[in-house]
């Protein structure tokens, strides 16, 4: 499973990390201080699990994927360019891992948590998120979308990534992302017309 994204993408548009603690932690990890990795894990863990959860829709899988993503990032930290933000990199890794899980599921026709059993296997945090009726409607509308539209729409609407970030995370062109999002928007508008129109 090739889930560690190439760094060339990051080299195209170099960004600078604004967090000196993060830069220092990465430097220390590169110098062999494994304990310094805790800072990076604790800083990004919630967002990474949320991204995974929004793709695979299963809290247990999401945690496993987050764990796997952090281990992969650690193993490849030597390739990481000093000074760049760690976030986009770990987000891409976890997105790729989660998309691999989706491919695996569709290949074996394995049905995980779907909208058919909305709250049965969700934990307290999830229930809190969807307890609101509107959020629940939005959640169900998003789940009714075809797979790629669903993933792109969730990364855009729920995780608030822009087109170029989603394109890099999913290894798609920005045009494809826009196209998926446009189709998703049309369906969501039909589905949620009574809520927003």
């Amino acid at each position, binding site marked *: 499973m090739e889930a560690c994204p190439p760094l060339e993408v990051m080299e195209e548009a170099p960004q600078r990390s604004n967090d000196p603690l993060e830069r220092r932690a990465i430097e220390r990890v590169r110098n062999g201080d494994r304990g310094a990795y805790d800072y990076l894990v604790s800083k990004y863990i*919630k967002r990474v699990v*949320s991204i995974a959860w*929004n793709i695979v829709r299963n809290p247990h899988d999401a*945690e496993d994927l987050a764990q796997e993503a952090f281990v992969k990032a650690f193993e490849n930290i030597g390739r990481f360019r000093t000074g760049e933000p760690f976030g986009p990199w770990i987000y891409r890794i976890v997105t790729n891992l989660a998309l691999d899980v989706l491919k695996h599921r569709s290949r074996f026709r394995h049905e995980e948590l779907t909208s058919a059993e909305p709250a049965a296997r969700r934990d307290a945090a999830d229930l809190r*998120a969807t307890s609101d009726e509107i959020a629940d409607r939005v959640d169900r509308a*998003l789940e009714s979308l075809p797979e790629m539209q669903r993933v792109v729409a969730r990364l855009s609407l*729920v995780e608030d990534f822009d087109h170029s970030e989603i394109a890099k995370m999913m290894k798609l062109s920005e045009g494809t992302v826009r196209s998926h999002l446009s189709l998703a928007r049309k369906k969501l508008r039909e589905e949620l017309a009574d809520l927003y129109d």
Partner: protein
Amino acid sequence: MTDDPFFDRLRNDAVRLRYDGDAMMVTRVTARVRERITAPPTVSLFLARWLRPVAVSLSAVALAGCISVALLERSAAEASMETLSANSMEISMAGDIYRVGE
């Protein structure tokens, strides 16, 4: 934000669908990651780490060798065909002479 009010309002509600794991989740995953990255590599992992690139390199060399041999054999066969067609051969049988290759 977009120029589409529908999407902006939808986004405001959708943000609430973020998975906001509790402190236990954070502790659990952090501990698992720490355990994975600090655990000494097992023999199989150690071997896999070294053998994988070696196996890839050997495969690449073997593939290049196969392609080279195939190309050499092909050019040798073409050369012998050219030689055969360029040189005629005379066969005499029962007083008659037959020419082959012209």
